[in-house]
């Protein structure tokens, strides 16, 4: 007995209706585009790849957190301020107070994840939209960051982190590079470019894979498995899809949301720590607008703003599109302010495309 009115769905259509579809096609398009217009500019040489891969990885790290939180039905607009706050906190604790860098980093993680939990707690307890609660924290954290920086150093930029981080065991986990031996060998064999003069002659221009990229990959894989393969992932979808329906069948919705707020904060601190270790300094204005860039990556990746639907891989591809375009415009010599124009345009396109895909999934169209 089959229902004659259910049309057989073609394999092609089935393959098409995935949340990541828009992001996959967008990524392909962006690569083809820049390969055509900037293919000979060094954008696809090792150094160029490292350049846009690092920028993409930065976006991806915060996008993974924002993605899981959005699927669970909530927003965090304080991601950017959290990045600035975490950076300044690490710098003050390590440079000003003279704590060992690893203690400063771990303390910062604990404090920021606690603030993430506070965000979540307020949202759950008050029932207010997370938009409002985290908007408040966008201002609170940014204000605190500037105040703390001025109070301790009379400046909004705190340098000297690189010096105190020398020899620390935890700092390279965020600011270091891996596979340096392999890259050196590849340089020796002439596979990749090496410096030909100066005190680094003979060393490869690209020394290794930055830990930032490693963190991004770990978080993407972790997020994807958590979301699609585990019980907790089902709860994330359920919490965002319909919290009340989920509660009625025993899903601990509040716990899921709280943990996702904490995970988003964790991702923001990973971003901040990597940045501080890379630059050797912290600045109170770091991370401005990052919350929106994270959310845009997630939306390009096919997630629904109202929750219950989305993909971590999609969000990562959204971040990749972001990074490639931002750096690609630089490589192709275009006016960099056009980046924002592009952002707005792609956001609208992505949302329209994703709305259409979602209608296909739920059979509305």
């Amino acid at each position, binding site marked *: 007995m089959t229902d004659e009115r259910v049309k057989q769905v073609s394999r092609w259509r089935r393959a098409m209706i995935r949340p990541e579809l828009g992001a996959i096609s967008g990524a392909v398009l962006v690569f083809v585009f820049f390969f055509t217009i900037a293919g000979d500019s060094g954008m696809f040489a090792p150094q160029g790849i490292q350049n846009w891969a690092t920028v993409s990885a930065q976006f991806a790290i915060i996008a993974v957190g924002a993605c899981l939180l959005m699927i669970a039905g909530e927003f965090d607009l304080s991601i950017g301020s959290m990045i600035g706050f975490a950076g300044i906190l690490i710098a003050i604790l390590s440079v000003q107070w003279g704590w060992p860098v690893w203690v400063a980093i771990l303390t910062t993680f604990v404090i920021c994840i606690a603030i993430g939990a506070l965000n979540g707690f307020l949202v759950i307890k008050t029932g207010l939209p997370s938009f409002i609660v985290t908007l408040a924290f966008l201002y609170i954290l940014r204000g605190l960051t500037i105040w703390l920086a001025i109070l301790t150093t009379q400046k909004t930029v705190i340098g000297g982190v690189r010096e105190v981080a020398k020899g620390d065991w935890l700092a390279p986990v965020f600011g270091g590079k891996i596979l340096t031996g392999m890259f050196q060998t590849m340089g020796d064999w002439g596979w990749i470019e090496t410096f030909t003069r100066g005190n680094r002659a003979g060393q490869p221009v690209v020394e290794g894979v930055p830990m930032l990229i490693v963190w991004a990959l770990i978080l993407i894989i972790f997020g994807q498995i958590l979301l699609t393969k*585990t019980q907790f992932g089902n709860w994330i979808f359920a919490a965002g899809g319909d919290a009340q*329906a*989920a509660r009625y069948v*025993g899903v601990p919705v509040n716990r899921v949301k709280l943990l996702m707020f904490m995970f988003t904060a964790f991702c923001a601190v990973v971003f901040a720590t990597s940045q501080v270790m890379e630059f050797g300094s912290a600045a109170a204005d770091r991370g401005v607008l990052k919350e929106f860039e994270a959310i845009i990556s997630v939306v390009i990746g096919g997630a629904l703003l109202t929750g219950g639907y989305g993909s971590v891989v999609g969000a990562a591809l959204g971040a990749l599109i972001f990074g490639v375009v931002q750096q690609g415009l630089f490589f192709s010599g275009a006016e960099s302010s056009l980046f924002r124009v592009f952002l707005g345009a792609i956001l609208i396109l992505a949302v329209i495309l994703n709305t259409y895909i979602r209608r296909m999934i739920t*059979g509305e169209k």
Partner: protein
Amino acid sequence: MASPLIEMKNIEKHFGPVIALGGVSIDVYRGECHCLLGDNGAGKSTFIKTMSGVHKPTSGTILFDGVEMHFDSPRDSMEAGIATVYQDLAMIPLMSVTRNFWMGNEPIKRFGPLKVMDFKKANAVTMEEMRKMGINLRGPDQAVGTLSGGERQTVAIARAVYFGAKLLILDEPTSALGVRQTANVLANIDKVRKAGIAVVFITHNVRHAMAVGDRFTVLNRGKTLGTAARGEINAEELQDMMAGGQELAALEGSLGGTV
């Protein structure tokens, strides 16, 4: 007949100064479909929510299998074996049938230190249970949004039965459905009852109640107007009790019996 599966004695529920339930008593036996009728605002929803652990009764006792129960949350009543299918909250449309079916009860497979959802088992069971209820899915990953209202209710009923519900509470499962879908859902209620599960069927449609009900209890303004067994009462009498009598009788005359 054996003792009832659930006995609700003198349940009262006050919300501030409002008395939503003023002492309601019913009992339900295994394999029985007990219809709870009443107009909007009669207290049907409040009453079943005390049964399913959403509300704590202000006073009164709940005996389940002869044991007095105090449900603090829906989880408590679920663990006792009470499953509730809510009219509009049964399913999450954007999630697949499998994900909905197992929501809150996901099967776990160990993968070394990792605990992952056993999708192979989940999908197979979902397809089989749906087939038993007369729904042929395109695939277990089909989104619930593509199902009709009746099919969604059926998935929710199948889910409750599969997870061992002893008492199934159905909150207006037919109120938003077409004729054929209603017939399907009613047929499934009948199937569930014959499997020995106690069913509480809330509706304000007398004909739907008469189709599957063994006993009928009418609620009006937070009180019961009595319980009648099948054959002791006819559709018109039920209808009159629900509406509070005379007004509807007068109205029915002018509407030509369409209510």
